[in-house]
């Protein structure tokens, strides 16, 4: 039984035809909507160049010109209380170097008031700040790379960055600021041969994932500062590439916090994640502890020029089946330094250098021995990279 995440095609010609027709339909929909309802088509696109020292993570080797994600979204609203977000991304596949079509978000929301909107559909999982604030918005994002451990599921992310289910979010005025909150429940994710994968049609193990986020957005003299906490839990089974053979079970319990500060001079964000993951293959024992976090600081040297630095650190217990079953579930440290020039509100150029040190030595990924899923052993090492990105939004 195949549970597709993406629309894939055996025939490249058919795939290209489908992509063309989809893009044309979306543009046509936008034109119709523009004429009748004033719904514009928005999106992001970027292109750039990269050069890096040899990385042991083959798919992360980059040398030459790079195309980024083409992200298109619409946010039609229907009467006063019904709104929606529909987002489609054409995303370069790191292995095949072909574009894949991803339905990023299909959210239909009912607005009760500022205190509450109930969304149903597929949404960006609300944890921390970056995942919902920037996601595929390369031009919005202060840096070229997002922090590695909160990258997408099919890149190097540790957590499900998308969820299919329901999401309640709202804000309440408290003092001079606002108290913002999110609660969500979704189909639990699954893991296919090392990549976390969202279940968009059904929950494979009938165990929902759920979580929450709460933050206080300060006002007055501290306007621009937000401090919050977040948590999520998900039970994720590991399947072989045939999508049916269940090999292992992993469970993630994440707790953490985040802080954001934005002013004319400073753009600061920090997120922390602490994991207490029980071994579900052994009755929930033992519980493995891991952690990950980053601190990002940008300084606006002038109105349109920013310099930024970021430090990321992930300390992973390699015995934990949840992380051991992930292709990129290992400890690392990454330092990033970069510059961003805003050409205008819709276009920017970024130059970024990073150094990544992999700290773990994993000879038996997935802990499954001969039953393994083909994950490559992980060896300690360091690799550097220089990237340039020209990003636009429309």
């Amino acid at each position, binding site marked *: 039984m195949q549970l597709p995440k993406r629309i894939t095609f055996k025939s490249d010609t058919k795939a290209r035809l489908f992509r063309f027709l989809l893009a044309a339909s979306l543009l046509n929909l936008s034109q119709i909507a523009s004429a009748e309802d004033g719904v514009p088509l928005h999106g992001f696109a970027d292109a750039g160049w990269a050069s890096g020292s040899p990385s042991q993570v083959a798919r992360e080797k980059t040398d030459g010109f790079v195309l980024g994600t083409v992200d298109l979204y619409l*946010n039609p609203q229907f009467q006063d209380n019904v709104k929606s977000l529909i987002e489609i991304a054409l995303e370069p596949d790191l292995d095949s170097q072909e574009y894949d079509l991803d339905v990023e978000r299909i959210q239909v929301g009912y607005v009760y008031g500022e205190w509450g909107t109930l969304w149903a559909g597929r949404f960006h999982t609300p944890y921390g700040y970056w995942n919902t604030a920037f*996601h595929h918005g390369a031009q919005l994002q202060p840096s070229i790379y997002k922090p590695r451990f909160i990258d997408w599921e099919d890149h190097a992310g540790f957590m499900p960055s998308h969820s299919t289910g329901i999401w309640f979010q709202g804000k309440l005025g408290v003092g001079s600021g606002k108290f913002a909150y999110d609660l969500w429940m979704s189909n639990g994710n699954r893991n296919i041969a090392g990549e976390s994968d969202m279940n968009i049609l059904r929950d494979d193990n009938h165990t929902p994932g759920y979580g929450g986020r709460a933050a206080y957005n300060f006002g007055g003299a501290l306007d621009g500062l937000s401090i919050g906490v977040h948590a999520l839990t998900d039970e994720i089974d590991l399947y072989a590439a045939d999508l049916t053979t269940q090999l292992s079970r992993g469970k993630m319990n994440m707790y953490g916090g985040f802080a954001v500060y934005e002013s004319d001079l400073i753009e600061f964000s920090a997120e922390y994640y602490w994991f207490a993951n029980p071994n579900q293959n052994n009755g929930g024992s033992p519980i493995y502890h891991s952690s990950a976090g980053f601190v990002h600081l940008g300084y606006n040297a002038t109105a349109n020029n920013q310099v930024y630095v970021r430090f990321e650190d992930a300390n992973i217990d390699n015995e934990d089946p949840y992380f051991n079953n992930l292709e990129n579930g290992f400890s690392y440290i990454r330092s990033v330094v970069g510059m961003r020039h805003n050409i*205008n*509100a819709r276009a920017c150029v970024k130059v970024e250098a990073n150094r990544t040190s992999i700290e773990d030595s994993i000879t038996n990924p997935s802990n499954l021995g001969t039953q393994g899923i083909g994950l490559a052993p992980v060896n300690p090492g360091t690799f550097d990279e220089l990237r340039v990105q020209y990003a636009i939004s429309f």
Partner: protein
Amino acid sequence: MLLASNSQKIKYFIAAFILLSGLMAMANASADVYVICNSNLGATDADIKDLFTGEKQAIGGTKVVPVDNKSAQGEFLAKVVALTKVKYDSNWAKKSFRDGLTAPSVLGGDADVTAHVKANPGGCGYVASAPSDGVKLVKKY
């Protein structure tokens, strides 16, 4: 002769100063911004910044539909929301992407904005000249 000449110069200087001050006062007067809303909408001056930055979308159960006024936007952004045009546009790009909100439409001038405000129960906007009857003046800046 020298004293008379200096006295005359001082008079000319004072006259020029008064004239310049008057012109500056007229310039300031023309740069006033009047924030207006539909007369049935209970918006207050405390709501204005939130309405035009997407932080507040409804008042008393009525969805607010703010619009920008192309001819007065510079003054409005500087005086009322304290943002540059780049920051204002960037803020709305984020609101659109993150929350599914739609940025205010940009109308051509006072007449269009006034017509929008009158026609929509949640209509809000700003004009450069004293508003006509039929709309609620929320605050003059």
